[in-house]
């Protein structure tokens, strides 16, 4: 009984519930949920989930990162170009991942060490990263060996799909971080910078870390997406930054920092992904789709924020109590 209560009051619960419900709806619409549906769902959306994990980490310390989408594009472009220049697929992927890490560290440097507002800072770096991607590969094109796609769509350790492993790496890494003293420090910093500083917490280092982690997450997302499409596009990640923030909010992560966790980001992103696939499969004309997606996003975010609003809750309680 207690466990049920705990589950329901969990920040990420509404997103999980929504995900399950819409998964069911999708199942009804497409005639049953099959293993192959899950496989294709996870391989298409692993990138979005990874970016949501990354952005959640930055939001937890009361920051944000809107450059992750550009980093994803950059990783894609780097992998394609490196492969075409004669590097092997693993080498190209490593190069992509490294460039993402570098981008993340750069973000961390300007936000943490230079103390620039994370929104503005990552907007500026986002312009720069997107510029580099466009500079390297001005037009969509290029290809990657299909062995990359086969690896991605296949299994690891016999039965676990590769995208799940890739997401799993991020999750395990984050769980380990949470077990370090740093885990508590991250939540403390998210609540109040000044208090965190007065408590002897290294604010700059923590901010540097979360942005680096976010960069890593974007790097893995870039690998996922590149492997899934096996082609290059300098703008492939452009819509991901904002969707990932929306995902985190739907997942119960407070934009004021200090509340929520990466599971919120994961479920929020999964919910948004399933929603998009429902809209696509609903046979709506393509020109209506983006409007409807936007509307659903709007409703999802406002409802999840209203649901977490304590003031509103007490107001409702008071209104009910007053009538008695």
């Amino acid at each position: 009984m207690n466990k049920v209560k705990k589950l329901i009051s969990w920040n990420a619960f509404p997103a999980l519930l929504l995900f399950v419900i819409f998964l069911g709806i999708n199942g009804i619409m497409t005639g049953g949920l099959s293993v192959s549906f899950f496989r294709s769902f996870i391989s298409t959306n692993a990138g979005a989930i990874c970016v949501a994990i990354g952005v959640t980490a930055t939001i937890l310390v009361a920051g944000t990162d809107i450059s992750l989408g550009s980093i994803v594009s950059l990783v894609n472009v780097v992998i394609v170009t490196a492969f075409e220049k004669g590097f092997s697929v693993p080498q190209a992927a490593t190069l992509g991942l490294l460039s993402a890490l570098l981008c993340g560290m750069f973000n961390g440097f300007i936000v943490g060490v230079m103390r620039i507002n994370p929104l503005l800072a990552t907007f500026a770096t986002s312009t720069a990263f997107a510029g580099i991607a466009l500079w390297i590969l001005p037009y969509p094109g290029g290809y990657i060996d299909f062995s990359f796609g086969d690896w991605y769509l296949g299994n690891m350790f016999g039965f676990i799909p590769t995208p799940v492993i890739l997401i799993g790496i991020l999750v395990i890494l984050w769980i380990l971080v949470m077990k370090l003293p740093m885990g508590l420090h991250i939540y403390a910093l998210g609540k109040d910078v000044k208090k965190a500083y007065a408590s002897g917490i290294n604010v700059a280092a923590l901010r540097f870390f979360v942005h680096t982690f976010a960069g890593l997450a974007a790097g893995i997302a870039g690998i996922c997406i590149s492997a899934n499409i096996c082609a290059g596009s300098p703008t492939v990640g452009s819509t991901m930054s904002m969707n990932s923030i929306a995902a985190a909010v739907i997942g119960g992560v407070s934009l004021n920092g200090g509340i929520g966790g990466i599971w919120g980001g994961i479920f929020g992103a999964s919910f948004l992904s399933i929603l998009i696939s429902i809209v696509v499969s609903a046979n709506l004309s393509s020109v209506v789709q983006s409007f409807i997606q936007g509307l659903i996003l709007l409703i999802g975010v406002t409802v999840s924020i209203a649901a977490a609003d304590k003031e509103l809750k007490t107001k409702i309680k008071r209104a009910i109590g007053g009538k008695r």
Partner: protein
Amino acid sequence: MGLTFQKISKKYGAVVAIKHAEMKIDNGEVRAILGGNGSGKSTLAKVLGGLISKDTGEIIFDGNVIDFKSPKDAKKNHVIMTSQELSLFGNLTVEENICICDIPVKGVFADKKKIKEKSLEILKVMRLENIASKKVEELAPNQQYMVELAKALVQDPKILIIDEITSALYREDVEIVDDIIKNLKKKGCIVLFISHRMAELYAMCDSVTIMKNGETLGTYAMQEKTESELLLLMVGMKVDTTRERKNHQTESRKDIFIKAPHIKIPSYGTEESLEIGRGEIIGVAGLQGHGQTDLIDALYGVFGEIKLEMDENEISIHNSRQAVTRGFAFISGDRERDGTFQERNLAENVAAVKELVKHEKITDTRAILDSFNVKYDNPGQLITALSGGNQQKVVVGRWLSTKPKLLLANDPTKGIDVKARSDLHKEFAKLAGEGSAVIMISSDDDELVNVTSMVECSRVIVMYEGHISAILEGASITRENISAAAMPIEEKTNVDVAERGGLDE
């Protein structure tokens, strides 16, 4: 050996915060630092705690020069600073908060068992074991204060700095704190106490250093000086203290003009009623968080509609705007949150109500500022350029220039110095003298006793758990009666409860 400050100075831009501060404290000594606003006492404490850097001077502790680069650095050397505004994280549990500065580890990971043990050990001393796994935001203010102290103690302080206790402690808590500090003394720990509460300082401290305008004026044994002597040193001039007040008028005829039969106290789900007379000052007392704030917030329409009878008309107030148009005014002690517009200048701060809400033209901002004794250069300067007390005077000027009929004040003199405090009291009394009414909450019982003695017609109501537990009038307004009524369970028999009739539900 002890701790020595030598010629410490600190400037913020052109503003001098401390100037050649000097002080020597022995091991095992509990030292109070006393001073008005802007006297530099908090700055000095923050320099020692590593929160801010000093410009010149040296701090010597046990023969070594110390100069901390960060709070972390200070903590490593067991110099611990605790202050209410800079301590606890509401989203973490009590045990996490207590250990956050030095989280015990097993290998590289945080050791949850050890965190629990370590914090329980200290919470046991405070008789608060049961709150260990609660989130801090769920605690009562006095419990938060104890947790804050626990967080400092767990770091094994050699120098402990306690900055500004603002929440009132229960009587049992005071004893516990007293015990803890005695224990620290035995270990040779130096305790620096920064507070405005004289009673606490006399109870706990050995000696006192007076600061004024960033300078240390002198150090005295606590018993050596009386309260008014200390105040005289601090302010540099004579101030009306409680000892020199007039006697309360015993019997007075009230001219009731506002009746509030249903005042909701949401924190406790209770309801109270109040009748307010012209020219009356009503003091509201009680331990912190017993519904005093709710009482005046409700009157101001903060919790939604409230029905009142004003000058024999039924009126209802839904929000602050309607309250303002009805001639209510609201002054809060939490200046930064509820009072000042820190990015705006004095003129804009003064005009906020009269011009923008009441749509009356202000012709001369200077005249208003002058009439409230604000020290300023010109009305175009930012309000943050003034000292705390002067900022509050600007806020008071904003409201009193609208000639309110009812002034609601929530601890309006919190954290401002004695001189500014007595200036404000005079303004309130003047307002009441002009036929308006004042309802004023204070966490300082002496202040209420003092203010209510300044007018002919006054009362002190004491609140406990969302109810008015006593109404004191005339000669029965004394500090003893107020504090007795604030904790009615133990000493109800001693309370001189005057005219309680008709107010029970």
